[in-house]
């Protein structure tokens, strides 16, 4: 579209100013993480010198490394678990004909309407009964089944032409082989979207880990942040910010890499 120069300048101006506002808090935290205590109190914006002291402190004062590992294990587990469970379910909905298929699908969708809070209290009790407090299973298993994920994959599977399935039946491919060798590879983009979504949301989870981890054995990094903020080093903001930066690097990276993909995938899922 042909745009006049004054219009272009105006839009660039708006873009620069507003995006600066949006990104500012992160940038600020980043700067603070390199500053010393006195510098922070003075209210400087740029650190005098880049010192990694805060970073080393945050790793030594807090078992941050093990928290990072925990978060990673949990997020990857949930991501893989969701991919497996949701793709199997979506496959069943699309390629099998059975009585009650629509009804069961409706049941699945209805779970999206039930807010987490309506189930959290008994879920904690369940975890306690299973003695799953402070375990990886407790943190991950409840989330393997995701209606949204099943829905997303089902939408994609529906676009696979029926002829492909029929050709595989003629060729004698078993149901599972067809799933494994044809359906999954063809749906790569949706699987990646779901995987990224699962990883991201699990990494950022707060309430559930708070409820079922009471010690630091499997504590995730988000609760680690809360711990950071409530300890005596809470006043050492440089250290705190270093912790924040460490926690957000994985997800920011994932977002930067997959941004276009995520946006397309999410909006396709949104518009049904």
């Amino acid at each position, binding site marked *: *579209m042909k745009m006049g120069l004054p219009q272009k300048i105006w*839009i660039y101006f708006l*873009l620069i100013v*507003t995006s600066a506002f*949006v*990104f500012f*808090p*992160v940038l*600020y*935290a980043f700067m*603070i993480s390199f500053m010393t205590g006195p510098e*922070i*109190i003075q209210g400087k914006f740029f650190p005098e010198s880049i010192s990694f002291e805060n970073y080393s402190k945050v790793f030594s004062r807090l078992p941050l490394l093990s928290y990072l590992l925990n978060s990673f294990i949990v997020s990857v587990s949930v991501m893989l678990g969701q991919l497996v*469970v949701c793709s199997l*379910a979506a*496959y*069943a909905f699309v390629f*099998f004909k059975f*009585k009650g298929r629509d009804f*069961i699908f409706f049941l*699945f969708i209805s*779970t999206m*309407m039930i*807010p987490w*809070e*309506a*189930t*959290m*209290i*008994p*879920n*904690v009790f*369940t975890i306690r009964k299973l003695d799953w407090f402070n375990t990886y299973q407790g943190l991950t298993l409840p989330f393997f*089944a995701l*209606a949204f994920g*099943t829905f997303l994959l089902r939408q994609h599977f529906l676009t696979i032409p029926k002829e492909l399935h029929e050709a595989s039946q003629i060729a004698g491919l078993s149901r599972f082989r067809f799933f494994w060798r044809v359906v999954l590879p063809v749906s790569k983009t949706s699987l990646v979207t779901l995987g990224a979504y699962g990883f991201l949301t699990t990494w*950022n989870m*707060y*309430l559930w880990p*708070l409820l079922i981890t009471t010690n630091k054995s499997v504590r995730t990094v*988000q609760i680690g*942040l*809360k711990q950071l*903020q409530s300890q005596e080093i809470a006043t050492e903001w440089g250290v705190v910010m270093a*912790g*924040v930066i460490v*926690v*957000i690097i994985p*997800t*920011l990276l*994932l*977002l*930067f890499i997959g*941004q276009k993909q995520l*946006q397309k995938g*999410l*909006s*396709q899922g*949104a*518009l049904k």
Partner: protein
Amino acid sequence: MTRIGTMWRKSLDGRTAALYLLPSIILFSVFVFYPMFRTIYLSFFLTDQTGNAAIMVGFENFQYLLGSSEFQNSMKATGLFVLYTVPITIILALFFALLANEKLKGIGFFRTMYSSTMGISVAASSVIWLFMFNPSIGMFNRLLGVMNLPQIQWLLDPEWALLSVSISTIWMNIGFSFLILLGGLQNIDEHLYESSRIDGAGYFYRLRRITLPMLSPTLFFIITISLINAFQTFGQIDILTKGGPSQSTNLIVYSIYREAFINYQFGTASAQAVILFLIILVVTILQFKLGERKVHYQ
């Protein structure tokens, strides 16, 4: 072949499907359906410390809650919070999406900037904002000081706390809303705009008569999601204010959390959860009723 034999063979589809669906069904039953019913069940009881239903009180929990000033305050705070955050987040996200939809050099950089808040967890965001709201060394008060304006006790002043939490929440949610709205904008057929340019339609005319109507399904989606999310806010409350000061930010989920896991009153907590569930249900139904008429599907 006996009749049972053919029936058995025909049900192969159903049986195999059951196998594929089993993991999801088991997980949903254990972690979604069962707990939901149990919560409703518990809401009619007073419980002991371990969470077992002890004394059946019927609707008394609900009566008590609806009458208690604490709960009413919680509802009010939640309502205000939703009102503060949802419209502004969406309007800002739409504004950014319109800007970022222009075909300019380097637009990808700006899109990344706008969507960045989606890559930052609630906990991390809250800690950053906690620092910025700090009364002595936080950035906001410093700015006020430079401009010779009186200092505000952002998170410690009952008048300001909810607003402060709202501001930080708007920031946190902008990334996701932006991405969804940008996706919606990009799905609009370019030819519609070209045709209107030949007719001589200006920017705001196009915005009103083409962009917004074509965007309405996406807008509907993001408003619904944002509303539901707003009612479920927890993380930032836990880190920024813990429900205070003077209960001014005691949003409903935090209230449930406190009631259940700090006061060990699982019965009343469950009742609160049921009320929350009903509110979300009503809001969503209203959304769909209103949206049905106004949204233009292709």
